[in-house]
């Protein structure tokens, strides 16, 4: 695909589809026009900036730049996911730990196994996929966790009243939250190649790679993402769960301010 030239007017033409999306939203009063506009502007600005940033990282070929870039991704990922977790008293710390750990553990493993060379060429795109998917999964999981706790307050308190620990009393809602965070990646892994074509494999085939190589690499990526998603969803829900309870195993009042300090401080992710 190298040498493919995309003109600005072509990008502009593709925007017609965005206009269509906005029109549909308006027609059905889905109230998404503003979000669509913000998403469009942000995609232009972010991709332009990141495109140049990635070029700088590739050209410099310095590991610390790669680590800094992945840390920034985890940070923005946690900030973005936090907005989906409005009903979770302490979300940012758990999300940052979840994304940082998921990224570090899975990238560390594939590098240690010699699957990818520890170079910016591999770590930046793979890290982006890993952290992006981990972010989506943990955002969904925490969003669900907040809703589940709100809906199950009576049952959680009744279980605490029996002398169950906060962890035991929250286990059913944590289980459901974890499930909803992971289900979409499990489903998309199941249907991969049938419903959607994974980008990396298609890209490699277009670039003239052997089919076996392209398939194997894509499989590794799918498994790495699946692993990262489960680590992230598990950590995010397990850590965020604590914010709902006091040390004396009491369920906090929903209108009580979030606990100071937020339980987990997470400098470790960088």
């Amino acid at each position, binding site marked *: 695909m190298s040498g493919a030239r995309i003109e600005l007017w072509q990008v502009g033409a593709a925007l017609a589809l965005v206009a269509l999306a906005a029109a549909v939203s308006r027609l059905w009063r889905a109230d998404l026009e503003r979000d669509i506009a913000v998403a469009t502007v942000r995609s232009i600005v972010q991709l332009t900036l990141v495109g140049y940033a990635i070029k700088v990282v590739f050209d410099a070929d310095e590991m610390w730049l790669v680590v800094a870039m992945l840390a920034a991704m985890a940070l923005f990922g946690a900030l973005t996911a936090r907005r989906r977790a409005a009903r979770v008293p302490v979300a940012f710390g758990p999300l940052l730990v979840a994304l940082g750990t998921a990224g570090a553990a899975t990238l560390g493993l594939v590098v240690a196994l010699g699957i990818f060379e520890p170079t910016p060429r591999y770590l930046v795109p793979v890290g982006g996929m890993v952290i992006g998917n981990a972010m989506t999964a943990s955002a969904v999981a925490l969003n669900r966790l907040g809703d589940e706790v709100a809906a199950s307050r*009576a*049952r959680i*308190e*009744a*279980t*605490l*009243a*029996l*002398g*169950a*620990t906060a962890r035991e009393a929250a286990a*059913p809602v944590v289980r459901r939250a974890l499930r909803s965070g992971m289900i979409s990646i499990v489903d998309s892994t199941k249907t991969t190649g049938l419903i959607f074509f994974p980008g990396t494999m298609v890209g490699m085939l277009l670039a003239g790679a052997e089919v076996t190589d392209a398939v194997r690499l894509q499989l590794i990526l799918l498994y790495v993402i699946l692993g990262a998603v489960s680590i992230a969803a598990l950590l995010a829900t397990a850590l965020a769960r604590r914010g709902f309870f*006091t040390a*004396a*195993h*009491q*369920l906090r*009042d929903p*209108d009580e301010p979030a606990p100071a300090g937020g339980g987990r401080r997470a400098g470790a992710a960088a």
Partner: protein
Amino acid sequence: MLFELRDVALARGGRPVLEGVTASIPVGATAVVGPSGSGKSTLLRLLNRLADPGSGEVLYRGRPLAAYEPLALRREVALVPQLPALLEGTVASNLAYAARLAGEPLDVPGCLRRAGLAPELAERDVERLSVGEQQRAMLARALAQRPAVLLLDEPTSALDPDARDAVEATLAELRRETGISLVIVSHDPEQARRLGEWELVLRDGRVARCGPAAGAPA
């Protein structure tokens, strides 16, 4: 004294729920009465530390509640909330869960009988119980822990008069048989009179009266 409350205050969302509550609850059966919104359920929640007061102190058998390990305290002082909230599964699995937490041997038929439930309900899924049955299953589950004190929040609110009488008889019998202490929240002064030897009346989050119930049963 079983419980003592000393100048207890608690606010929720900036609104005071309990204010300057000083009261004692002796061993035996105590009825906590008052109109809805008077702070009865909140007071009950303080007694097994589902919540802590904003200020003031609660003592259990002469020691501050905070000195007890909360989980052990809740197994000894069991609270049955007003809203039935059983865990997914069967009635028996709920009883087994409670008994396991308390480290007590499991006697499903015995607990069901004492709560006024037929033994064949043991294997029924909790989703298939009526609200009244759920309420009694909650009582049976608390009994499975063999608590020393039972805190009951409107234990008969979802029951018809016959079922209500059965639960009241059960509580009186339980009290005679096991010497368990009861703290019963009720909006119904008649019920309070039938069940309580001691009466704590709340109005607008304050103590209106605390003392032996008029015409308390022997």
